[in-house]
C-alpha cells in the first residue's frame, strides 16, 4: 500500500512535468523573440519602408501586405464558408452526396498548405492568368482555409440544441426564420471564432504565398490587388535564410517576427475572448 502511494506520487510528478514542458517551451520561445525584437520596435520601424538592404528602416509594406492579404482572404472565404456551412447543416438532406461533401471538407482541412500553394500557382497564377498577385495569393489562402471554416462553422451550428429549432418550428416559423432568428445568433460567435483561428493560421502561412505573389522587396506599395505584395512571413523566411549579412539583418527579422506574432496572437486572442464570452452567455 505504501509503495503504491509513492509510485502514484512519482507518476503525478511526471505528468506535472509534462505540463511544465509546455510552459517552458513557450517561455523560451517568447524570451528569444522578445529579447531579440523588442528593441527594434518603434514607430519608425512600423511605418517606414525598409532601406539599406533591409538592415535599417522599417517593415511597413510587409505589415500592410499581410493585413491586406488577410482582409482579401477573409472577404472571399468567410461568406463562402459560413453560408455553405449553413446549407450543409440546416438544409442539405443527408445522403451519399452530403456525406461525400462532409468527408471531403473534413479531410481537406488537413491537406498540407504547400499542396494548396502548388494548386494556387497552377490554377490562379497561370491557368486563370491572374499572375503573381495579391488576389492569386488571397484566393489560394481562401481555398486553403475554406474547409477549416466550413468544418468549424458546422460544429458551431450543430452545437445549437435541436430543441431550440423545434421550439421555433413548432411556433410556425419557416425554415429560414428558424435558422436566421434562432440558430445563427447563437452559432455566429462560434463560427467567427473558428474562422478567425483559421485566418490567423493563414496570416502566418509562407509556403503558399511564396509561389503565388509575395515579393521580397518592392519600391512602392501595391496599387491594386493585381500587384505583387510584401508579406511578413516571406520576409522573415528570406532574410533568415538568404541575407549576406545575417548579423546585420537579424534585428529586422526579430522585429518582423514579433510583429507577425502580435498580429496572429491578437487574432487568436479575439477569437478566444469571443468564444469564452459567448460560452458563458449561452449555456444550454
Amino acid at each position, binding site marked *: 500500500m505504501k509503495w503504491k502511494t509513492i509510485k502514484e506520487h512519482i*507518476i503525478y510528478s511526471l505528468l*506535472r512535468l509534462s505540463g511544465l514542458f509546455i510552459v517552458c*517551451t513557450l517561455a523560451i520561445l517568447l524570451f528569444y523573440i522578445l529579447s531579440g525584437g523588442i528593441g527594434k520596435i518603434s514607430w519608425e520601424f512600423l511605418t517606414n519602408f525598409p532601406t539599406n538592404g533591409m538592415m535599417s528602416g522599417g517593415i511597413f509594406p510587409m505589415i500592410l501586405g499581410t493585413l491586406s492579404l488577410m482582409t482579401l482572404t477573409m472577404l472571399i472565404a468567410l461568406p463562402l464558408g459560413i453560408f455553405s456551412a449553413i446549407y450543409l447543416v440546416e438544409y442539405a438532406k443527408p445522403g451519399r452526396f452530403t456525406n461525400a461533401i462532409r468527408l471531403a471538407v*473534413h479531410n*481537406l482541412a488537413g491537406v498540407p498548405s504547400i499542396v494548396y500553394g502548388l*494548386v494556387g500557382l497552377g490554377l490562379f497564377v*497561370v491557368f486563370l492568368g491572374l499572375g503573381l498577385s495579391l488576389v492569386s495569393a488571397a484566393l489560394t489562402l481562401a481555398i486553403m482555409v475554406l474547409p477549416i471554416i466550413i468544418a468549424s462553422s458546422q460544429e458551431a451550428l450543430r452545437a445549437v440544441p435541436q430543441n431550440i429549432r423545434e421550439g421555433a418550428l413548432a411556433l410556425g416559423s419557416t425554415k429560414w426564420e428558424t435558422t436566421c432568428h434562432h440558430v445563427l445568433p447563437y452559432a455566429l460567435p462560434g463560427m467567427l471564432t473558428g474562422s478567425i*483561428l483559421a485566418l490567423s493560421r493563414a496570416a502566418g502561412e509562407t509556403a503558399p504565398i511564396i509561389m503565388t505573389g509575395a515579393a521580397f522587396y518592392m519600391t512602392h506599395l501595391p496599387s491594386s490587388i493585381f500587384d505583387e505584395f510584401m508579406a511578413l*512571413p516571406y520576409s522573415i523566411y528570406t532574410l533568415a535564410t538568404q541575407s549576406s549579412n545575417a548579423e546585420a539583418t537579424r534585428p529586422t*527579422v526579430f522585429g518582423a517576427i514579433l510583429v507577425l506574432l502580435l498580429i496572429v496572437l491578437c487574432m487568436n486572442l479575439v477569437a478566444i475572448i469571443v468564444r469564452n464570452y459567448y460560452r458563458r452567455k449561452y449555456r444550454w
Partner: protein
Amino acid sequence: MKFDLFTLKKYDYKKIRNLKDNAIRKILFGFGATAVIFIIIILVFLLIEGLPFFLEGDGIDFFTGDVWDPSSPNTPRYGILPMVLGTFLVTLGAIVIAVPIGIGCSIYLAEIAHPKIRETLKPIIEILAGIPSVVYGFFALIILSTWIDDFFNSTTKLNALTGSIMLAIMMLPIIISLSEDAIRSVPQEMKEASLALGLSKWDTIRGVVVPAALSGITAAIILGVARAIGETMTVLMATGNAPVISFDMLSSMRTMTATIAIEMGEVPFGSTHYHSLFAVGIVLFAITFIVNFIADRVMKRFREKY
C-alpha cells in the same frame, strides 16, 4: 408556383414568407455548391497536372528510385523514396517526442490539475498552436540547431532531429487539446463507477479513463501526425534538405513538402520536372488524406461510444 408580384397585398404575408424561404434555400444551395466546386477543382487540378508524370513512363522509377536529382545535366532522376523516408523519419521522431509528453500533459490537465492551472495552461497551448511555422523554423535555424550541435556534437546543425523536435512542439497543442477533450468527455459515471469499486484515482485514470478515451487520443495523435507530415516551412528551415537515404537522425534529410517548396519556383511550366512536383503533391495529398480519414473514423467510433 405561379405568382404575380404586383398583386401582392398585405394579406399575402404568408405567401411572401414562403417565397422568401424558398429563395433563400436556393441562394444557400448556391454557396454550398460553389464551395464544393472549389474543393473539387483542387482535386481535379492536382490530378490533371500530376497524372501526366505517371503516364509518361517514369511512374515506376518514381516510386522505386532512390535518387532525386531532377536538374542533373546528365540524367535527371525522379525517385521519391528519399523524401518519403525523410518525411517518415522526421515525423516518427516528432511522434516519439510529442506523444508521451502530449498524453501526459492532457491527462494532467483533464484529471489532475487544479481548475485554475488548467485555465491558465489552455491559453498557453492555444498560443503555441497559433505561432506561424516560419517562426518555429527561424527558432530551429538559429537557436535549436546550435543547441543540438553542442549537445550531440553532430556533423551538421541542420538535421532530422532538429526538425523532429520542432515538429513535436508544433504537434503538441493539437495532441493535447484533442486528447484532453477526449479524456474529459469520458462520462463522470464511469469514473464514479471505478472509484466506487475502491480503486484509487490513478487506477481509475489508468484502467478506466484512458482506455475509454483511447480512440479519441488516437485520433488526436493521428491528426497531429497529419500536421507534421504536411508542415513545410519548419522542416524546410530545420532539416538541411539533403535528399539522401539515411537512417541517422543526426544527418540532413529532405521531406516531400520541402521538395515542392524548394523546386516549384525553378521549373518551367509543363516540363517533366513541373509534373513531377505535382506528382509529389499527389502523393503527399494521398498520404494526408488517408491519415485524416483514419483519424476521422477513429474519432467517429469514439463519439458513437457515448
